[in-house]
């Protein structure tokens, strides 16, 4: 399936911290309280070339909101998040962002599969009815949790992009659950994801990202791969954390991974509209050549 976009957006969280988000407060609340800041992030990515924009709803599920006593505002927050994309990025494809609930499934934690399904359905329904074009289900470590999430979202009949967070495990790359890129991709696509891939991933180099994409491609020859790396590992400076991997590096990395078939590129922690702009130029050059 062709999704009609190749470039999504970059980081939301680190952009909001620049705009004054206090650590420990839920960023999804800013959809209601600071809509102009959320919109400015969306707008900056859209202007930089992002064809699809992700709603600021990563933590807007009932478990995460309950940690802040905001569970009753779930509908309101998710609806406002969609409105923020619509008003800031006219014409962009809207991706409804869904993250892990933060609780772990039995036997690792106390979460029962039925309770996970209910939570995913509740957020998914608000996003689907609000008009998102697809779901972006991201930053998962436990493949079972991701598969239950995908399976639940299939009820809404929208494409699902599903990505894992990988980390370096010795010479290999695995999720925290020990899942290899090959297994991860097979599980996600097997559960019904339209596209699969990776996002975030502390300490992962761009070359590790390229090699995990190759591993996924070796078992998933057709589905688009979604890749959203961090802008490197953060350094502590006088003004807080800064990220070292610059936009130029992203551009040359994009050239490399575009040789691996259909790709959907974007960024995670620390990436900025500049990273997106550089990749947008790379994509334009590829299309022209």
């Amino acid at each position, binding site marked *: 399936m062709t999704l009609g976009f190749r470039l999504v957006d970059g980081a939301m*969280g*680190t952009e909001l*911290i620049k705009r004054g988000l*206090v*650590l*420990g407060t839920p960023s999804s609340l800013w959809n209601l309280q600071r809509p102009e800041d959320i919109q400015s992030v969306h707008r900056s990515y859209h202007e930089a070339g992002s064809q699809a924009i992700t709603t600021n709803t990563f933590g807007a599920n009932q478990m995460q909101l309950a*940690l802040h006593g905001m569970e009753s505002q779930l509908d309101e927050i998710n609806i406002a998040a969609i409105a923020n994309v619509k008003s800031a990025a006219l014409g962009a494809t809207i991706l409804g962002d869904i993250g892990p609930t*933060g609780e*772990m499934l039995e*036997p*690792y*934690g106390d979460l029962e599969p039925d309770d996970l399904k209910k939570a995913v359905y509740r957020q998914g329904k608000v996003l689907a009815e609000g008009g998102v074009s697809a779901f972006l289900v991201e930053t998962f*470590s*436990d493949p079972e949790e991701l598969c239950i999430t995908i399976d639940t979202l299939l009820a809404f009949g929208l494409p699902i992009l599903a990505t894992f967070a990988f*980390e370096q*495990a*010795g010479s*290999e790359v*695995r*999720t*925290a*659950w*020990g899942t290899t890129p090959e297994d991860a991709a097979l599980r996600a696509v097997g559960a019904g994801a339209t596209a699969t891939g990776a996002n975030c991933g*502390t*300490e992962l180099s761009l070359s590790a990202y390229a090699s995990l994409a190759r591993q996924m491609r070796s078992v998933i020859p057709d589905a688009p791969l979604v890749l959203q790396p*961090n802008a490197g*590992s*953060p350094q*502590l400076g006088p003004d*807080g*954390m800064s990220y070292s991997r610059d936009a130029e590096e992203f551009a040359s990395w994009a050239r490399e991974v575009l040789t691996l078939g259909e790709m959907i590129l974007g960024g995670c*922690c*620390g990436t900025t509209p500049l990273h997106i702009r550089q990749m947008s130029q790379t994509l334009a050059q590829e299309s022209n050549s």
Partner: protein
Amino acid sequence: MDTQLLTSAIVAGNRKDAKALTEQALAEGLPPQEVLDSLIAGMDEIGGKFQRNEAFVPEMLIAARAMKEAMAVLEPVLLAAGIKPEFTAVIGTVQGDLHDIGKNLVAMMWRGANFSVVDLGTNVPPEKFVEAAREHQADLVGLSALLTTTMPSMKATIEALRSAELPKAKVMIGGAPITPEFAKEIGADGFAADAASAVTVARELVAG
């Protein structure tokens, strides 16, 4: 009873067996210290596998849960026998960060290594670390962060601990984005890359 069974139940993360075997071992009159050592050996073994990338977070989590069940049986017996942890540790995830998997694993590994552990939870402000370290006369304070964005909270917490003058309390930090360089830069006494090495580092730090 073969104490290796206790160790194996922890390594396999078998909660039911870990509890039943601990009860059985005590009923058979095995010294509680020997039961404890066998359980700790299990945590050490799974921790070693984790360090060598032969086991991952899920295996650690179920082992920790099995350890918890066994300790619930064993702890009153240890207390009655006057066997108390030699050292006290305070642990928490720093302000702004709500992640607790790594912190919980380290807490469990420390308990397994016979530290008395006070777990402050997540999103813990610096002053709460200071308060708890003072109240419990902590030998060790452990700070965890998963988010790169919350690493500055570690720095603030260490500054607060230093200015509170708690000479006994050694500070160690850990979490996915943490590097030894960062630990050094913000003045931590120790750094651990994972829950298993957190035990080794903790033992070294409290030994002075």
